[in-house]
């Protein structure tokens, strides 16, 4: 018998059609992966099953859970079903928990409101559930608050909330997207174990093909509110027939065409750089304890090269980036660009530009594109000519007329193109790409990577590519630096690092990374 059965689900929000006849089913003990890019409707499909849709939604079709029709249930019945029969895990563990309640209380609440047990019993069952999610009492007492936990630990708490009552169906919406690769691997294996132990059905929503094909039994591919293909996960790469599925696969493993054009002369030299942060005093008027964020880091980037800097959150890569950009002084060591010190001669900073992860947050929403793009000219004490703006926009694949628009009129990928245009306009030699493609869908990401490769040839650019994503860095970098706990633990050519990693941390990172079947 199927557990979740969705037949011809149609959803519109304020009159805009979002889901156009979705049909899918999940059996007990089955893991069904739902893959799609942003806007494909995968999260709304999940929220339809929970009936937690945004205001103005109009939902029709048929959704049954264990034979019960969800769309005809009254709100009180839905409340009894949510949490008891279906549990849900969300993408952002940092914000999914109430910051002012203890984790024990939040897990126990699921039990309390459904079964009306005593508080003490609910708490002791919460402790058991947390222990099943690898959060034992001995290390994580129930009175911990969410801010005292890491992202991965918080996600375990969210999972504990969802499975506390042993639901028949668990919906996990991008459960590992916000996490580091090693943490991602742990959370995925936890989900696998819980499904095996409890015989739950799991709907695993993700944009990441490798994550889903590695864990799911079946895969459903969604595009623009429709299911375009459903296959067995293990054989998807052989059996797929729909052009969109093939395009997704191509884009996920996309390898931009590159020719090596590097010169042996170093452009950026980072020599024995260390950076300490002062922590709050432990005693009144005592000395501030120090935290070494970057520890004796040294490396070179040669002209025309693309160097990947890989590391997990908190490894010191952002601190290092700020230091290279000359934004934060370092306590030890020197950073030179083209032989000139970035701190002593701030002028040299015009030779480098940066592109950040968030293509929306890094632009002032009240300025037009022309002004946004010409911002770096402040360094040169002149304003950009119309020709320069036009050329910058054209070079990243936009039209000159786009300069009159505002940033909210563009999609994520286009915004990132504008960010690149802004970096290009004063003809820098080095561009630092700080997680520049991490927030993009795979097909857009492939396009941006191609663009970066083209631009490096046209303008003779050097890239420092900072990311947590190993697949991306493998496809574009000549050399790789692996950073862990403030140190560069391994560096070498891309092939050396991927094929024969020497450091144990690098090996752990590579093992944890989900891989596409080939």
């Amino acid at each position, binding site marked *: 018998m199927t557990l979740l059965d969705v037949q011809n689900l149609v959803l519109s929000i304020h009159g805009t059609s979002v889901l156009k006849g979705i049909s899918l089913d999940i059996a007990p003990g089955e893991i069904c992966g739902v893959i799609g890019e942003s806007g494909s409707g995968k999260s709304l499909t999940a929220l339809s099953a929970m009936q937690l849709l945004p205001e103005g939604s109009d939902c029709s079709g048929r959704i049954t859970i264990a034979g019960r029709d969800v769309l005809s249930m009254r709100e009180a019945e839905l409340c009894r079903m949510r949490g008891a029969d279906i549990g849900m895990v969300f993408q952002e563990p940092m914000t999914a928990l109430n910051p002012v309640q203890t984790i024990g209380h939040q897990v126990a609440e699921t039990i309390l409101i459904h079964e009306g047990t005593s508080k003490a019993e609910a708490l002791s069952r919460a402790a058991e559930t947390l222990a099943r999610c690898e959060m034992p009492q001995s290390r994580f007492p129930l009175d911990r*608050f969410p*801010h005292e936990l890491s992202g991965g630990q918080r996600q375990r708490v969210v999972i504990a909330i969802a499975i506390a009552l042993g639901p028949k169906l668990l919906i996990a919406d991008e459960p590992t997207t916000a996490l580091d690769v090693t943490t991602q691997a742990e959370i995925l294996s936890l989900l696998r174990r819980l499904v095996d132990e409890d015989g739950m059905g799991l709907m695993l929503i993700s944009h990441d093909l490798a994550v889903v094909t590695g864990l799911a039994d079946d895969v459903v591919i969604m595009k623009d509110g429709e299911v375009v293909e459903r296959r067995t996960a293990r054989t998807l790469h052989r059996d797929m027939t729909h052009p969109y599925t093939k395009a997704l696969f191509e884009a996920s493993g996309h390898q931009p065409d590159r020719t090596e054009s590097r010169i042996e002369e170093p452009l950026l030299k980072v020599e024995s750089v260390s950076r300490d942060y002062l922590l709050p005093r432990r005693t009144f008027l005592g000395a501030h304890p120090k935290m070494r964020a970057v520890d004796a880091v040294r490396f070179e980037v040669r002209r025309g090269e693309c160097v990947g800097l890989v590391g997990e959150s908190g490894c010191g890569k952002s601190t290092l980036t700020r230091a290279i950009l000359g934004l934060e002084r370092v306590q030890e060591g020197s950073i030179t660009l083209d032989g000139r010190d970035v701190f002593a001669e701030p002028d040299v900073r015009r030779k480098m530009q940066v592109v950040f992860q968030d293509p929306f947050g890094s632009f002032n929403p009240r300025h037009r594109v022309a002004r946004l793009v010409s911002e770096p000219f402040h360094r040169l004490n002149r304003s950009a000519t119309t020709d320069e703006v036009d050329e910058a926009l054209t070079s990243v694949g936009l039209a000159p007329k786009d300069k009159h628009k505002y940033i909210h009129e563009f999609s994520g990928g286009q915004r990132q193109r504008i960010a690149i245009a802004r970096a290009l306009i004063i003809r820098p030699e080095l561009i630092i790409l700080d997680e520049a493609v991490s927030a993009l869908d795979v097909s857009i990401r492939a396009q941006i990577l191609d663009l970066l490769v083209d631009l490096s040839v046209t303008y003779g650019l050097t890239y420092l590519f900072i990311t947590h994503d190993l697949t991306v860095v493998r496809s574009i970098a000549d050399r790789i630096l692996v950073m862990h706990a403030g140190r560069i633990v391994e560096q070498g050519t891309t092939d050396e690092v991927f094929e024969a990693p020497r450091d144990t941390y690098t090996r752990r990172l590579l093992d944890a990374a989900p891989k596409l079947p080939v």
Partner: protein
Amino acid sequence: MLRYTVKRLGSLLASLVVASLVIFACIEVVPGDPASFMLGINAQPDTVAALREELGLNRAPHERYIAWVSGLVTGDFGTSYTYRSPVSEIVVERLAISLPLAIYALSLTILVAFPVGILAATRRGSLTDISVMATTQLGVAIPNFWFALLMVLVFAVNLRWFSAGGFPGWDEGFLAAVKALTLPAIALALPQASILARVMRSSLLDTLSEDYIRTARAKGLTARQALRRHALRNALIPVLTIIGLQFSFLLAGAIIIENVFFLPGLGRLVFQAISQRDLIVVESVVMLLVFAVIIVNFLVDLAYAWVDPRLRSRT
């Protein structure tokens, strides 16, 4: 929590010291001699000399500062030049009206603003919400002395439910005193309640769109349970800030309303003392108000920590 409290107490003491230094310095750096300033330009030189002696102005500044501060600590605020009685007595007399009035007005503010703000937020975009937004806009815009006069006209002159002004004193019985303070408290509370209701509404709307509210709904909580158990406490943080500011304002800023209702409160005392150039009263009352503001801020800080565990552990 203890550590946090001790730290906040430390910063409270530091603020008090700095504030007393600033107030003292202000009076010190004012051009001219405080004694001749207080007596006006036609004063006799020997009167000025006598006042200088009385004020201790012939001593060195640091000695005077220490004398003033130790006086404040022991409750000796000096003697008012115009009233010829101890400042502490005058202030206590005035506080007996101003403090209850401020507490009364603030309680009304909270009692009205919380339910109204919550109602508007939970029914966003409905007719209720729109009328709440319109009414509170009006409440902020109406000058409160005009509203006070209107209430006097309706409830005192026409309906004769309340007296038009004055204060019988607490000796006349609690109810009589509270009754005398009712119209002034409503007049003071109207704009404050309007502001607070709007803050409550927008803060709650922000909180209701947070991810953890969705988590709570996914657990099976009803919309109302999610509001009560998860949203309210989180929405309280910006609201507490505003309440703290409002209390300080109500304590000292009630001068116009005190005038409308002939209430001998702190605001009128400062006003009179300034126009009569009674620097001793001005200095002490300003210090007292600063003290009140700092204490209120301290209490707000403690309330923050009670609401938000992240503040307790951040040292």
